[in-house]
């Protein structure tokens, strides 16, 4: 069954059309990789899906679980289970990572009609998930992302995702800034969440992340359009040949 259906999505950023008609369907429990050259529209797709107002939808529709995703406020999308792991996570001085997450967990529970999470249960959950992505426990008490290294920020995003347990995890270039060990740890964190129910959209420029998070489907996004869709072997092909041929195809 389709968890996410994107139909003919057109998106403008500051008056320039970046997405020029994207069609994409992600079924429940599947991992889709979105690959493509820089400037092709990968991050635009991610930001548009979570409701960044700077990304203006000019045409098309997005159905999530059969509901109109584009009608929802960003926080409602999150509460409905859509998560974005940012390419450049924002630093938030003065807001502790743990308390922020607790507020987020409670906002989602409230949305589902559940009561607030018990403090002890929350602490246990947070510790267990931090261990899963080998996030240093001192980072839990620090302000969100403040003073974190690039790799720590990416790990923190995956940590947030594993605590919030979304139905759809969108990972925007999560691999950048990660060394081989961190890449393996982050990937293991994501793989641990693959349970046949949860879906992922993994956005990357390179193939190396996809060695660890093996996708079911690979799409190539060039110049605002999906120009090719294939199996996991497509990623290898791209690694070898690059995107040059696709640039021409898209032109």
């Amino acid at each position, binding site marked *: 069954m389709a968890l996410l259906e994107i139909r003919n999505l057109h998106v403008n950023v500051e008056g320039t059309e970046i997405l020029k008609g994207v069609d994409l369907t992600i079924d429940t429990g599947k991992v889709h990789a979105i690959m493509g050259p820089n400037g092709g529209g990968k991050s635009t797709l991610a930001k548009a899906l*979570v*409701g*960044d*107002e700077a990304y203006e939808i000019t045409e098309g529709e997005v159905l999530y679980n059969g509901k109109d995703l584009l009608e929802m*406020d*960003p*926080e409602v*999308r*999150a*509460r409905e289970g859509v*998560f*974005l792991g*940012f390419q450049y*996570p*924002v*630093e*938030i*001085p*003065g*807001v*502790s990572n743990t*308390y*922020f*997450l*607790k*507020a*987020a967990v*409670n*906002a*989602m529970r409230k*949305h589902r009609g559940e009561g*607030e999470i018990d403090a002890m249960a929350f602490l246990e959950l947070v510790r267990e998930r931090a261990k899963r992505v080998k996030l240093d426990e001192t980072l839990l008490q620090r*302000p969100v992302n403040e003073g974190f290294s690039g790799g720590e920020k990416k790990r923190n995003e995956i940590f*947030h995702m594993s605590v*919030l347990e979304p139905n759809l995890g969108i990972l925007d270039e999560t691999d950048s800034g990660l060394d081989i060990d961190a890449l393996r740890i982050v990937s293991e964190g994501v793989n641990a969440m693959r349970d046949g129910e949860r879906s992922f959209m993994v956005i990357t420029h390179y193939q190396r992340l996809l060695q660890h998070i093996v996708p079911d489907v690979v799409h190539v996004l060039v110049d605002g359009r999906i120009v090719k869709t294939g199996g996991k072997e497509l990623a290898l092909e791209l690694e070898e040949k690059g995107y040059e041929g696709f640039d021409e195809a898209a032109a």
Partner: protein
Amino acid sequence: MEAVAQSKSVYLESFEQLGEQGPNWLRALHERGIHAFEARGFPGSREEAWRKTNLRPVTQTHFPVADSQGVAPKALVERLGDLGDSYHLVFVDGRLASDISDLSDLAKGLTVTPFSQYEDHPPERLTAALGRRVDIDWHPFAALNTAFFVDGAYIHVARGAMIEKPITITHIITAEADQRAVYPRLVVEAEDGAEVRVVERFIGDDQASTLVCPVSELSAGQNTILDYSRLQEDGATVMNIGTVNLAAQRDASLRGAFVADGGRLGRVDLIADLEGEGGEIDCNGIYLTEERQFIDFHTWFNHRSENCFSRQRFKGILQDRSETVFDGLVKVFEGAQKTDAVQENRNLVLGKRALAHSNPRLEIFADDVKCTHGSTVGELDEEALFYLRTRGISAEGAKGMLTLAFAGEIVDMFRVTGVRDHVRRVLMRRLGVDDADIGEIL
């Protein structure tokens, strides 16, 4: 200038008609006050230090001194417990309210006395201290206070006494004092080696359009720790224009926590003098304005001695059409080498029509010093707001979270636990943030 001339004569006339107010021994000081005010008058709109403060509501009406004491409403009396356990002296409309004060079991070495209780025999150290720290020839509202105050609090901490429990002086303004003036006065002296925490608080009835002109004089002797918190939480229509005078002797540590979130017009002139080598004055403040409120902090930090340390960190949060001023001077006198001074003012403008003025200044007459200052006026970070929302936090919750985080840095520096907790609660209430929504982020 006509209004000024008229105002002067009205205050002098009022002074002469009133005759003696308060204990007899204050008479000479009162006269000095009215003469200073007569000579000085209200500041003109071109005077640099007063340029941004609209004094018309104050100067165009005569506010005679409140000559009776109203009854503090129950809701205001209940607020006396807000700050937790402390010795408590309460003044209502400028006069002692002994029935709601609690000075039982004062610690050894601590004296907390209303001036009115001294009758004819005030201690010499009080008469010497009263007015010593404040320049009434320079400050017209301090001069008015000196002319008209009828009572006040004297806090004395004996040499070496360490006082654990804070002392709270609360000034309550009732509806009875509407269209009148109230002149609160506080003198704190911590002798060498003492340690004490003093909280001064202003609360009142929202119906009282009262002119409140407080003067506080605090002196920290050698090697003392003196912690002073000032909470300006006046009723909605009060105009509160006051001076705070801090002086630190050798190796003294004087810490100030300032909060202003009440009243229609609020101004504090904070004059801090570092008089002995190794002294430090560390003042942190938060002001929170809404609707058409105006709040103004003017500071003068005078480094008069070597090796002194000062910190000023003030943050403003402005809503609606409110306006604020931070104007701060660090002055390093000749010979005050090895001065280490930092002055910071940051403003978060949440209202589209709110206006924050920020003017940090340095005057340095020594050559071996470390002085920095910084000032910002900005809005909430849109990217951060969006990031929080993508994690499920509502737009309002995200705004509240970021605003509280902005203020929290200052609130965390407040050393008196009761004050810190109270200010957190006030912030959450004023920002309309639901506790459950944001968790314990402060």
